[in-house]
């Protein structure tokens, strides 16, 4: 194999890998968000629920969507040769939550993607990350045709801890999603510093 030979004698770079989770209700745009910044086409297993899921999945308010994500959609961003960030979309429905704990292990932080027309859909995700002390932010996906609510209203409606950032975003827009991810990491850093101080004082 040509590649094998050319690589001989050279120590391959073994990057540090990190992951951020993208959670939220069914049809809120998790895969879209992952795809907006990923350098690879996100892995999709949506077709598995195209037919079987229809009687169970309530698509009121998201009529444009015909499939749902069962397994994990993920994307990759190579930040440096030795630093790679993976984005994992979590399964949207409660009955697939057995997949979450494994996903959440070692995650550096999470985005809870919210749709203001169905805000209650992200309660479960907010709950999950709060309980496991995983740093998260709430990103409100500003769908066309949806009424825009100021971030502090969303913060109140979700009864978030005051420290949890709420941002508005467009999950289709690369720049917007980049900003969301930067916010997650900054928040994770704040949380890490706070925890260290709590331990040392």
């Amino acid at each position: 194999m040509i590649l094998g030979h050319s690589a001989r004698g050279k120590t391959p770079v073994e990057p540090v890998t990190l992951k951020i989770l993208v959670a939220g209700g069914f049809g809120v745009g998790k895969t879209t968000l992952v795809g907006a910044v990923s350098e690879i086409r996100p892995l999709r297993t949506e077709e598995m629920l195209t037919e079987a899921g229809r009687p169970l999945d309530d698509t009121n308010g998201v009529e444009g969507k015909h499939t749902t994500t069962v397994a994990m959609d993920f994307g990759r961003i190579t930040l440096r040769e030795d630093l790679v960030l993976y984005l994992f979309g979590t399964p949207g429905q409660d009955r697939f939550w057995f997949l979450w704990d494994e996903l959440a292990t070692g995650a550096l932080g999470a985005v809870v993607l919210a749709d203001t027309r169905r805000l209650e859909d992200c309660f479960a995700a907010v709950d999950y990350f709060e309980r496991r002390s995983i740093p998260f932010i709430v990103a409100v996906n500003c769908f066309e045709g949806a009424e825009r609510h100021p971030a502090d209203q969303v913060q109140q409606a979700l009864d978030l801890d005051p420290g949890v950032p709420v941002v508005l975003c467009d999950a289709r827009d690369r720049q917007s999603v980049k900003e969301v991810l930067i916010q997650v990491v900054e928040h994770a850093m704040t949380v890490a510093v706070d925890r260290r101080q709590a331990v040392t004082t």
Partner: protein
Amino acid sequence: MSTDDEGTQGTAHWFDDDAGPVVRPYAMTRGRTKSAAQHRLDLIALVVAEDPTLEPETDHALSPEHVDIVALCREAPQSVAELAAGLNLPIGVVRVLIGDLADEGLVHVSRPVPPAELPDESILRDVINGLRAL
């Protein structure tokens, strides 16, 4: 996975197509759902090819899927999730196959950040800078 909570309809035995696509790939692992060593394989753990002079193709104990994994990893280190996606196999199957390869010394698994703790601040800062520069 969730195959046991519905659709059993009178018999607990599933043959051929009845077993469904979730179960059948485990034929590649000869029914094993865990590897002997049971390496802790996170979805983002990286699988790195070892000595490029070893030729997995000539090892008859290895399946074509094993050989595929080694070939992919020789191009560049691959995460467990990427290997599963690249080979279109369930994560559980890929984990067992990677375990076999690690036991054979064909690959090793690198896991730089311990899953129980948050990465340190300097790495987080690097991530932020990296994202800004995209």
